[in-house]
């Protein structure tokens, strides 16, 4: 189906609000994702939706929530997490042993599987954590996604994607609602809502930033702007983690590969 002017308008509004690029053939995608929203608000069709959002801008968050993807896995891409656990974390535990402070940002964390996987990697290192100030900031544009993540309760379908039996038994407890992440993991993670296309207001810096499988939804200019923003938050030895299909090529000159075997982990380039 070709876009009507209103549908083009709607795609533009979504891009302006959250940076997500929807192709001209996204009619069916939008129809599927927004079906219940349209029914609930008695909106006839997608064409009418753009006018509706101009009258009721407060409904936009809900639309963004439905349009953005929240699918994630624990330890998504195990070679990435292997390098993170065996090379990146040991580097930072050594490099930060004086001030014993480590700050990690998991951007676009969806339902929390990534920041909790990071926390599990950290706890595997058996440091004396009472001496360390470790914080994982996990953010997502979707309030529903961070609410679920904060709760830390997953279905048996979710915990069986990426977690080994040992990891499940050591880091979760079974509750009536499902599999709940243990406090020893969740206390390391703080959830907030951040829209990546808005200027970063974070004053403090991070040692490590993961922004994985999200840049693919943005146009080149937005990707460049986000990577420049992240680069300004990292120290001279900071680490950046991207998703498997993503790269910094043509987007940023500020990073170089962490090692030649892992294409998705980068360090700040030495000048």
């Amino acid at each position, binding site marked *: 189906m070709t876009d009507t002017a209103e549908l083009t308008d709607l795609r533009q509004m979504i891009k302006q609000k959250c940076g997500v690029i929807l192709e001209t053939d996204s009619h069916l995608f939008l129809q599927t994702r927004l079906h219940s929203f349209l029914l609930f608000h008695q909106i006839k069709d997608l064409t009418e939706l753009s006018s509706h959002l101009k009258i009721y801008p407060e409904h936009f968050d809900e639309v963004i929530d439905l349009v953005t993807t929240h699918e994630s896995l624990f330890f998504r891409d195990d070679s990435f997490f292997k390098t993170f656990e065996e090379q990146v974390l040991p580097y930072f535990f050594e490099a930060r042993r004086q001030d014993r402070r480590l700050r990690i940002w998991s951007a676009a964390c969806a339902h929390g599987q990534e920041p909790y996987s990071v926390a599990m990697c950290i706890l595997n290192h058996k440091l004396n954590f009472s001496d360390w100030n470790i914080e994982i900031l996990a953010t997502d544009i979707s309030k529903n996604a961070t609410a679920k993540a904060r709760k830390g309760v997953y279905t048996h379908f979710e915990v069986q*994607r990426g977690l080994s039996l*040992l990891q499940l*038994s050591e880091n979760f407890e079974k509750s009536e609602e499902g599999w709940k992440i243990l406090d020893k993991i969740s206390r390391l993670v703080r959830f907030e809502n951040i829209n990546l296309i808005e200027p970063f207001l974070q004053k403090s810096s991070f040692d490590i930033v993961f922004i994985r499988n999200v840049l693919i939804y943005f146009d080149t200019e937005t990707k460049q702007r986000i990577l420049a923003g992240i680069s300004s938050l990292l120290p001279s030895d900071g680490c950046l983690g991207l998703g498997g299909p993503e790269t910094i090529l043509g987007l940023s000159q500020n990073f170089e590969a962490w090692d030649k075997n892992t294409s998705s982990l980068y360090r700040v380039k030495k000048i």
Partner: protein
Amino acid sequence: MKILLIDDDTALLSLLKDILEEYDHEIIQRENAIEALEYLKRHPCDMVLLDWFLPHMTGLEFLTQLRLDPRTSSAFVVMVTGNHDMAAIREALGCGVDEYLMKPFTKEMLLDKMAMVTKKALLKK
């Protein structure tokens, strides 16, 4: 991989066989644990997919016997079960299970577990 499926649910056995054969695995099926154990003593398998509740012997009893016999002790075992209790999981771990697949499961979940076990097997070598 050569995979032994042990389950008295023939519909599930057939489903698992169809999925795993798509990925070029060699599949052997047994509906009871005693026959499966006898088979394994003579024909080593890379992996065993084991139901919790079986005729003649439970999956855990099977697992305990498997680990005690040097001819079968190194097989990788994935318990396939509807039992979602943490106590059951810990009991299975205590008996030497390598992975655990909770029913109902999707094809992706099964393939994830297969990949995990394959990696563990490679590390062991």
